[in-house]
């Protein structure tokens, strides 16, 4: 299979899937179509990623599309988020389809938009053209906006509007930044090539530095808005808390990462152009730390479960950004952390969603005794939150330790101290919430939860994966991470 065909298939599956969803006869059929399509897409993506990691990057004719280790790694993470989330959507919406709350129209819309998001994110990951990259990100914003208010309510509309406006503004900045980067190459590259990442990277040394740096500022603020970096994160808790749980899981699990991926693409160009002066990484460190600290403040006082998880996303995106900014081992750790966080956060949102159904609320003061009321999902929430706040031996602890190590390697003691401080505050706040939710006795009149056997897989597979990765890193994974981090590092 040639590279071009592969890219076409990767984009065609979501398109076809969306069309199939729109034609579905029952809500359940739409949901199953989603699942089938996503599995198909994931298989393709994973096999492509394997090939890339084994044999090196693939590019389409004209180099508009490119699949290298970095995008392959993100493809893997994306597959690991989309497949369980699609399956979870079936179980999550089961009651609603039964009661008719999820009408056929809504189910079709959900399926089509879900596929749309999949397609747009795939587009982001495989494009070598920075313009297309931008188009993909803008498309994710527009496609996912209506997923937030699948069930129309005043609050979900509010969240959707905020998401739409803030992210559109951000993405407009990113567009401006893309143009600046292209302009910085106007002296060295053919105009037609000025947006091709591979070409830009090749001539990075001769790019106009000021234009490039100004462009990066626009890009960082722009894509950072979408990625949920503080102080541009304000849309994030609203959107995450109002969206249906599968959508929240998707947002937190990969939407943010796909935006951060865009920033990553520019990082090696910047580093090469500035003689590895660390100018761009330093900005990343600053934004990472601000995100960690601000989210910590909001985690302590949170009273809504899904908003709590949303702020955790801000925190972890901050940690990942910090890792990228620190360079060296930090990049490796940040990429590892991306996987860990996505696995963990999807599980957390799955559990939060189902617990929300059990308790009829996401207000944490009214959730207690989750381990008794809904053993499976209580366990899922408890374990995933513990993992999220960095309890060993879950993999997040390992990646965070590596980031701390990277900070010391970089002699970045102030960031290290702030990182540990923020982590400590988050730990205190989140542990309090989870202890109060998981233990104790459930309030009277709580509907006991019926977990089907397949749901066990949804909880246990990510947990075991996190546990396993915390104790043992397979060689292939190490290899993939090394390849991907070499690309971000930008050293030729």
């Amino acid at each position: 299979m040639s590279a071009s065909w592969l890219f076409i298939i990767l984009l065609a599956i979501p398109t076809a899937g969306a069309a199939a969803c729109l034609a579905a006869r029952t809500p359940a059929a739409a949901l199953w179509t989603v699942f089938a399509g996503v599995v198909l897409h994931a298989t393709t993506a994973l096999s492509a990623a394997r090939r890339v990691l084994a044999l090196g990057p693939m590019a389409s004719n004209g180099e508009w599309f490119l699949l290298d280790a970095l995008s392959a790694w993100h493809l893997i993470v994306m597959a690991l988020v989309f497949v369980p989330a699609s399956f979870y959507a079936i179980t999550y919406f089961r009651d609603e389809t039964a009661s008719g709350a999820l009408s056929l129209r809504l189910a079709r819309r959900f399926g089509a938009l879900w596929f749309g998001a999949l397609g747009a994110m795939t587009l982001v990951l495989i494009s070598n053209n920075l313009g297309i990259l931008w188009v993909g990100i803008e498309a994710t914003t527009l496609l996912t906006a209506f997923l937030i208010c699948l069930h129309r309510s005043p609050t979900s509309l509010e969240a959707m509007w905020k998401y739409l406006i803030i992210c559109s503004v951000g993405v407009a900045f990113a567009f401006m930044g893309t143009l600046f980067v292209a302009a910085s190459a106007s002296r060295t590259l053919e105009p037609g090539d000025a947006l091709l990442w591979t070409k830009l990277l090749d001539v990075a040394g001769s790019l106009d530095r000021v234009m490039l740096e100004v462009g990066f500022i626009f890009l960082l603020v722009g894509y950072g808005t979408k990625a949920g970096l503080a102080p541009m994160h304000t849309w994030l808790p609203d959107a995450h808390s109002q969206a249906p749980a599968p959508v929240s899981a998707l947002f937190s699990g990969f939407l943010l990462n796909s935006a951060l991926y865009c920033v990553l693409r520019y990082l090696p160009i910047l580093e090469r152009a500035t003689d590895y002066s660390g100018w761009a990484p330093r900005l990343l460190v600053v934004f990472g730390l601000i995100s960690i600290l601000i989210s910590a403040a909001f985690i302590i006082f949170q009273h809504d479960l899904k908003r709590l998880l949303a702020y955790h996303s801000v925190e972890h995106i901050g940690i990942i950004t910090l890792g990228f900014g620190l360079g060296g081992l930090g990049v490796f750790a940040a990429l590892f952390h991306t996987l860990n966080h996505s696995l963990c956060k999807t599980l957390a949102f799955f559990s939060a969603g189902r617990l929300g159904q059990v308790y009829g609320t996401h207000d944490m003061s009214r959730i207690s005794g989750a381990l008794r009321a809904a053993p499976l999902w209580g366990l899922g929430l408890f374990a995933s939150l513990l993992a999220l706040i960095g309890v060993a031996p879950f993999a997040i602890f390992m990646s965070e330790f590596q980031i701390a190590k990277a900070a010391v390697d970089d002699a970045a003691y102030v960031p290290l101290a702030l990182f540990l401080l923020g982590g400590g505050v988050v730990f205190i706040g989140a542990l309090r919430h989870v202890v109060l939710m998981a233990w104790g006795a459930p309030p009277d009149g709580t509907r006991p939860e019926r977990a089907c056997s397949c749901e066990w897989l949804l909880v246990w597979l990510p947990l075991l994966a996190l546990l396993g990765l915390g104790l043992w890193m397979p060689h292939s994974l190490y290899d993939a991470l090394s390849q991907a981090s070499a690309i971000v590092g930008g050293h030729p």
Partner: protein
Amino acid sequence: MILLTLAGVVVLVAGAGLALLLDRRPKWASFAGAGMAMLGCAAVFAASFRMLIGGDAEAIRWPWSMPLGAFSVALDPLSAFFLLPIAALTGLAALYGAEYLQSWTGRKSLGMAWFWYNLLAAAMILAVIARNGLLFLAAWEMMALASFFLVAFEDEQERVREAAWTYFIATHLGTAFVVALFALLAAQTGTLDFDAFGPISAPTSGLLFILAVIGFGAKAGFVPLHVWLPEAHPAAPSHVSAVMSGVMIKTGIYALLRMMTLLGEPQPWWGWTLIAIGLASGVLGALFALAQHDLKRLLAYCSVENIGIIALGLGLGVLGYTARSPLLAILGFGGALLHVLNHAIFKGLLFLAAGAVAHGAGTREMDRLGGLLKRMPWTGAAFAVGAAAICGLPPLNGFVSEYLVFFGGFLGGVSISGHFATAGFLAVAALALIGGLALAAFTKAFGIIFLGEARTEAAGRAHEPGMAMRFPICLLAGACLLIGFFAPVTVLLLARPIAAILPMGEHAVDGYLLAMAAQLRWFVLLAAVLAALLAALALLRSGLLAGRSVTERGTWDCGYARPTARMQYTASSFAQPLVDLFRAVLRTRRSLDAPQGTLPTKSASLSTATGDTFTHKLFRPAFGGVTRLMERMRGVQHGRVQLYVLYVALTLVALLVWRLGVARP
């Protein structure tokens, strides 16, 4: 030997898994969990004992596919010395727990409890034998996680949830410092293997020492990082409290010692830091212990006190080392090490006995107990032995280790000049005060709980626990006596661990310890004299009383017609004079409901409670300040989308102005 130790760890982990699998059948889960725990601990005990009496240090290094990680473990005398109490107490407590947890059958998941218990045991052992920073951290955190869940065993009680929360926060914040410590070490040496850590130059090594003291001190319970101890230990089931208080906190001491051996040349101020910590922990721990009404809280504070004694020993050892006085160094480190072992024994004993009391009488409130010695003769006698031992009374084991530290202080004060002498005298004064206060605290605990008459009906109906609970208690009491009487032999066991800490040959250390053993032989002699005198006096007394009238009456009580059990001195009244004397530190709260009128109709009451001053005056305000700051920050997310966009815009403009306006190349 290392393979045997690892086999023990594997057995423990397997026991954990088995207990979880058998969760549906509580009996089997208990059997498998406790049985495997004992088996695993027995293996580790055998390995470490063999090591201490003369095995060769062994190491294994397997690759571990984790950046910077290696599965590197080793059993050297220092590790073995810490493994000894860990294995012994954990195994015995498992036996005890098998019976203790029975009453929760059906209400609680025993499989879960044993799962975490075995994991805790495995993690402690692994932490002590780990020779790679990452492996150590993993084991260290596993230990915290397992004990966190064990503390929360009775999670339906709010107090227990609070305690578990506090505990996990304290230990995790400690871990943050440990993470920083290892990250720095790795940056200095490029690896996380302990063997590869070279000597580190002065300013950095000082920073690392501080990080280690804070990070590991939080686990060990150094004042003021001890605040989790009095919360967590009472909340946990008693066999878990015994393990946590007896050995788990010692892993903090172990890690601190291990780090000190890796950091290179110690500085005198390290010793002073440890002495200051020891002073504060010892005296405050004893004082707070005295003021408690809850037996397990008292014991928890007492652990702080004993950790203080250990820290004093370590401090004297470091000072001895820097003053080039090998004897002082050996006395300091040796005393600290031996106290680690001894404290594990008697604190384990006391916590297990406290569990038996709670089990038999239904409460740990001292003022609701009394007269238990008549109903629980075995437990009571063992408790008396443990109490005497923990006060450092001859001829029990506590005296031996405290003696070494004490004598070190004396020696430092008498024969070394300069600030070392001051440290020695400080240690002497502190140990004397600690001893006096501990005596007050434990005569109170023993006297109020086991002596006199039952203060409540429940206490009057108390009963001895079954064999599985009684046996470990009595065995530990026996160990207290045994170590005391065989002190000259016991101190020789210290030679190899001390040689692992100090850069001296084993033979040199042995020489000094033989001298100490000779001194201790006098103690044994005197102890024998004491025993003989007691026997003679007892014989004399029974001979005198034979054939004379020996009658039993009510307590005379200065002629009161109808004394009742409630008129006895209570725990709080017993402690009142000392508590009042130190009220500036203790800040005991009284709530008095005074009798009204000449002929009071309503019953009056007075209650006192001593919280932790550090919790109330240091951590609460500090966290409160941070909290208020953060609360103010929350105003940022006010819901107005225009202003949200403004944040984005301002960020952009600020960066643009910075880049184009200020930082123009």
